[in-house]
């Protein structure tokens, strides 16, 4: 066995993901890459550079801004789009709320995670996107583990897990009827650790949120929760300062931090290797019920 003719597992995953991205470019008229400024979509952008340079991306980057995003992630998003010279489209959940299409949640833990779907589906309609590339991974969550790489959604954006197309070898079938769209997940087969090891191997820059820093937090449902203008505090909440970092970056209203001193990629990789909890263990949106993700996906969530 020679090492020359052998790809490491990361190189194999990379080759597969680039292949999937090129399939999207070849099979669809108006694709888009959903880009949030988080580590998974940053990895997707890096893979797209590999897939299409020296050409331009055959799709824009699209961000559905909930209005509750971390400013560090937004800044990073804009800088990255600028640096690589690719088009960025941003649409706002606030606009959907103002137009009366989406209704803000009430209660102590309001989240815009669910109503994000409304804005996403409107954006898909506005630009007539027929494929949306996303950074979801099958190891994240049990409903995701069931999803195909090319996941067909009906005209309402709904996913029906019982009616999925069989996906054989590496032949992807992106044929759809007008009005339908396909969600494509090029890093389906990557694990959280793979993403981190890849980011290190490829020296990919990330928002500072992922590295340890001091932050005001409160404890909520046993998780470390960042204090922000979007969180309602009451007398039972005790604000503390802790050294934390984020393992996953979503909305400020549903993303919890973890206490961590890890401030380099090596530290983070070591931390993930020895961690006893999943990445989504810090996502309150998934803790709402046993089938929270499945229900959201059925409703058109990405």
């Amino acid at each position: 066995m020679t090492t020359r003719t052998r790809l490491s597992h990361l190189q194999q995953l990379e080759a597969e993901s680039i292949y999937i991205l090129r399939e999207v470019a070849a099979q669809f008229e108006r694709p888009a890459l959903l880009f949030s400024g988080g580590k998974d979509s940053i990895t997707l952008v890096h893979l797209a550079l590999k897939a299409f340079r020296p050409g331009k991306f055959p799709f824009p980057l699209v961000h559905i801004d909930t209005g509750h995003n971390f400013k560090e992630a937004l800044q990073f998003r804009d800088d990255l789009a600028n640096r690589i010279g690719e088009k960025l489209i941003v649409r706002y959940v606030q606009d959907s709320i103002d137009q009366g299409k989406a209704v803000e949640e009430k209660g102590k833990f309001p989240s815009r995670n669910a109503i994000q779907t409304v804005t996403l589906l409107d954006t898909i309609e506005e630009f007539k996107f027929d494929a949306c590339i996303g950074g979801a991974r099958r190891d994240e969550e049990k409903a995701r583990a069931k999803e195909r790489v090319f996941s067909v959604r009906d005209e309402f954006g709904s996913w029906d897990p019982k009616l999925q197309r069989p996906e054989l070898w590496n032949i992807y079938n992106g044929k759809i009827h007008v009005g339908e769209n396909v969600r494509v997940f090029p890093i389906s087969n990557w694990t959280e650790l793979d993403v981190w090891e890849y980011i290190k191997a490829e020296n990919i820059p990330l928002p500072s949120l992922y590295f340890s820093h001091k932050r005001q937090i409160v404890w909520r449902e046993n998780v470390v929760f960042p204090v922000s203008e979007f969180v309602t505090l009451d007398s039972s909440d005790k604000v503390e300062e802790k050294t934390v970092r984020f393992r996953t970056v979503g909305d400020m209203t549903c993303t919890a931090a973890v206490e961590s001193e890890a401030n380099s990629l090596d530290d983070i990789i070591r931390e993930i290797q020895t961690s006893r909890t999943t990445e989504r263990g810090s996502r309150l949106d998934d803790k709402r019920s046993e089938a929270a993700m499945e229900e959201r996906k059925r409703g058109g969530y990405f």
Partner: protein
Amino acid sequence: MDLLRFITAGSVDDGKSTLIGRLLYDSKSVFQDQLEAIEKTGQVNGQINLALLTDGLKAEREQGITIDVAYKYFSTPKRKFIIADAPGHIQYTRNMVTGASNSDLAIILIDARKGVIEQTYRHSYIASLLKIPHVVICVNKMDLVDFSKERFDEIVEDYKNFASDLDFKGLEFIPISALNGDNVVDTSPNMSWWKGKTLLGYLEDLEIEVDETKHEPRFPVQYVIRPQTEDHHDYRGYAGQVRSGLFKKGDDIAVLPSGLRSKIKSIYTYESEVEEAFAPMSVTILLEDEIDISRGDMIVTDKHQPIVSQDIEAELCWMDAKSLVPGNKYLLRQTTGSVKSAVKEISFRIDIQTHEKLESSQLALNEIGRIKIRTAKPIAFDSYFENRGTGSFVLVDEGTNNTVGAGMIVGAY
């Protein structure tokens, strides 16, 4: 570190989900919050119900069965693993075919009390048909037959008799109890007579075929990169993933189906120019000559070219509720190409239980048979036996857009 992709197959209640749960649990790949979630949901006889780790859909948890293929990931210091967890129900044969199409290995479970049954035949036949190189038969629930060596030997004997006409490169047998963890990750103190490896030990040590370069070089063109900018005015790169073999700068090549010839000028990855590209690298190839090449064409080296034909004979697994009958037209997708096709003949249907070839005028859902199909234009292919990458295709119904058939090419007719 390398990657092993495997599929698990077994009947309902053979303990497939429990086995996967056990593999994940004993190899310490289960996280605390996942454990807490399943502990909340319920226990069986005072033990955690490990099967709950794999059944991801609400309906699956409600019914206690696996409906669709799920993919699970775990790793040990030796290797990374991707498990395709395919349902065992007869009506989900298509899902097993789906999971099997990308696997290097199949684990087939047999209940030690029941021995070799109908479903064992079906799963083994599919593994053989899909040319999964390695098969390991796990005789499960050994705890329920008093860890009997005689019972295990009997099942091994039965299976070997049955599988004599099937074609596996490697075939292994391991006695286990997924529920208690005997011989899954840890050696069982209850079966001191077993001198072989544990299942995980076997999965970690198995030599998978890695030298793709001994296969013929095949590069299906996926996408043409033409920046048309000042810097790259004449750049015309053929992007794709090397399906098999090795390409080097300077190689004489042919483009199929047209047969036009040229020479490889350069090979690029994103960062840099490389001297050679081998499977499964995704690269961009530039040629010496300006010739007409588009998506679906295949670049091959001059020697050992694939077959180019419009008349294809293939094994087909039918995956649609509406039966396949001769005369039907479908879009045939093979490598990166897509071409209209018409089914000319169903040569026979295979009885998966007996392997008998039966005369048949149609293929119903989940049936497998031999067909002859004609494509609107010639395509380049190898037999599936020689090359899984260029010998496989799917049929797409142009009315529903669904993927309705999985084909494995036997040859031209």
